[in-house]
């Protein structure tokens, strides 16, 4: 502010000698106008709907402020739904991250033929998007009661994975196994750049100093990869936690996961309380945000440590 004012006083002093320069024509602020659609979009389709749900979660039928909806979440049915969703998302995220990491390490640093790498990356792009209803169909055709693998195991080993193995595609492990089909490729795609970033020189330097492979990974490789792994983990968790199409097509409303519960609530007010539905949705946002906050905190720490 100050330099401008000083300029002004100087100018007022010399006003009599020099004519003031003509004001430049006022320009239309195109820059901000061009960003406006994006901002409006974000407000209308991301911020407002979220705020509406938060508001709804704390409002009773008459429109008064209440904590009753939040308290209403603590029933056996709803808590069980959250818990099984968290377990499936956690299991599929952790397994997906571990297996995805192993596959990526194998294709990038395992001295496999070059062609395999691009083939795996291309396939991962496809498989990570091959989710939803068709994925459920594919697993029913594979591991359903009449699925090919179920039948092959029964004929070859005389072992019924459903009757004797206690397996059920429409259960916790069935759904986790199905989710891995898009979780593993997502891990491969997001972690590959980080593994590419591990320089060969570090490996050589560690070897020169007498480190073995285990020590290299324990003290160099893994600490560098850790933030990326954790970041992807929270992405995978949110990815599975919000998924419904696969579960819906696989199990209908048999499996009491939180997305199926919320879906039924939106469809036909299954909980018979709109406020409770909003609270259910708010709970989902809180859980996925928490996963991301944990990631941000640990990533910040890891970065500080790396400096």
């Amino acid at each position, binding site marked *: 502010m100050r330099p401008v004012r000083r300029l002004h006083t100087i100018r007022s002093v010399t006003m009599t000698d020099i004519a003031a320069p003509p004001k430049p024509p006022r320009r239309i602020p*195109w820059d901000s106008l061009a960003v406006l659609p994006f901002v409006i979009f974000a407000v209308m389709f991301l911020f407002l709907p979220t705020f509406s749900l938060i508001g709804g979660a704390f409002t009773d039928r008459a429109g008064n402020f209440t904590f009753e909806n939040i308290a209403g979440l603590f029933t056996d049915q709803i808590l069980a739904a959250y818990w099984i969703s968290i377990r499936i998302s956690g299991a599929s995220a952790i397994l997906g991250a571990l297996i995805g990491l192993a596959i990526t390490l194998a294709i990038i640093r395992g001295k496999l033929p070059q062609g395999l790498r691009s083939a795996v990356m291309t396939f991962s792009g496809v498989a990570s998007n091959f989710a939803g209803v*068709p994925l459920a169909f594919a697993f029913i055709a594979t591991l359903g009661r009449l699925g090919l693998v179920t039948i092959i195991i029964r004929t070859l080993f005389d072992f019924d994975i459903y009757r004797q193995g206690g397996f059920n595609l429409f259960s916790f492990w069935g759904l986790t196994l199905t989710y891995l*089909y898009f979780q593993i490729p997502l891990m491969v795609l997001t972690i590959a750049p980080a593994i590419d970033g591990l320089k060969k020189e570090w490996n050589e330097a560690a070897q020169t100093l007498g480190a073995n492979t285990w020590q290299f990974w324990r003290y160099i490789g893994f600490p560098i990869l850790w933030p990326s792994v954790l970041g992807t983990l929270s992405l995978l968790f949110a990815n599975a936690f919000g998924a419904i199409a696969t579960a819906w097509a696989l199990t209908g409303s048999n499996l009491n996961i939180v997305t199926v519960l919320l879906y039924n609530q939106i469809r036909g007010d299954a909980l018979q309380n709109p406020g409770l539905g909003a609270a259910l949705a708010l709970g989902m946002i809180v859980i996925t945000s928490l996963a991301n906050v944990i990631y941000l905190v640990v990533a910040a720490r890891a970065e500080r440590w790396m400096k």
Partner: protein
Amino acid sequence: MKSQKFWAWLIFVLGAAYFIIPLAATFEFSLRMRRGEYSFDAYASVFADPYFASSFAYSVIVGLFTIVVGILVVVPAVYFVRLRMPWLRPFMEFVTLLPLVIPALVLVYGYIRLYGSSSFIPFTGSVLGTDILLTCAYVTLALPYMYRAVDNGMRTIDIGTLTEAAQIAGANQLQIIGQIILPNILVAILSGAFLTFAIVIGEFTIASLLNRPAFGPYLVGIGTNRAYEPAALAIISFIITWGAMGMINVLGRFAPRTSARTD
């Protein structure tokens, strides 16, 4: 070192088995409709179903609108934020990450509450309004991917110099974006577009909750009523996804690699 290679192969083969067996099994299952022999009867039955064609066409059209609206929303914003308002970048990164954090199911619940027939913008009050809301919902879903594709595209070209050169030559802002920037990042935009298409084409949650006759809800309906057609549809969907991703790979080879300034 030998053992390292062995483990790498073992992991690769196990992984490949997990990913290929379901596809093979689904394909085999889809051929079993005729008793005692393999046939493409299930595919014939799918293609003969008028609802297949109509729901697929509906999803394709919504997908195309989603791509156009997505480009209109993202491209100018990314361009001006990169060029003149870098302080807005963290905001854009945050916004484009939100759809990955907030589940689609939660978002659509918010839309239904907010834009119901008695609200201030009653999107769901009419068929056209619901279609518009569905398109906007899909743009939101695809926002993270479209944003990253366009942002990566703009990183590889020198938008500062291009803009100055165009301004000196007398171009206005609209011409700069439409005739200079857009053609230069076309490959990036197209890969974002194909990714958007792959996401939209089989989407179930939002379409079914907004009661629109899209491909996703049609798939679920078939899944509950038929035995072999779902397997055939899964294979068809996989081929469509493969096609969209394959296009992105092919396009990647045409991407401009002339980067003058690094930022």
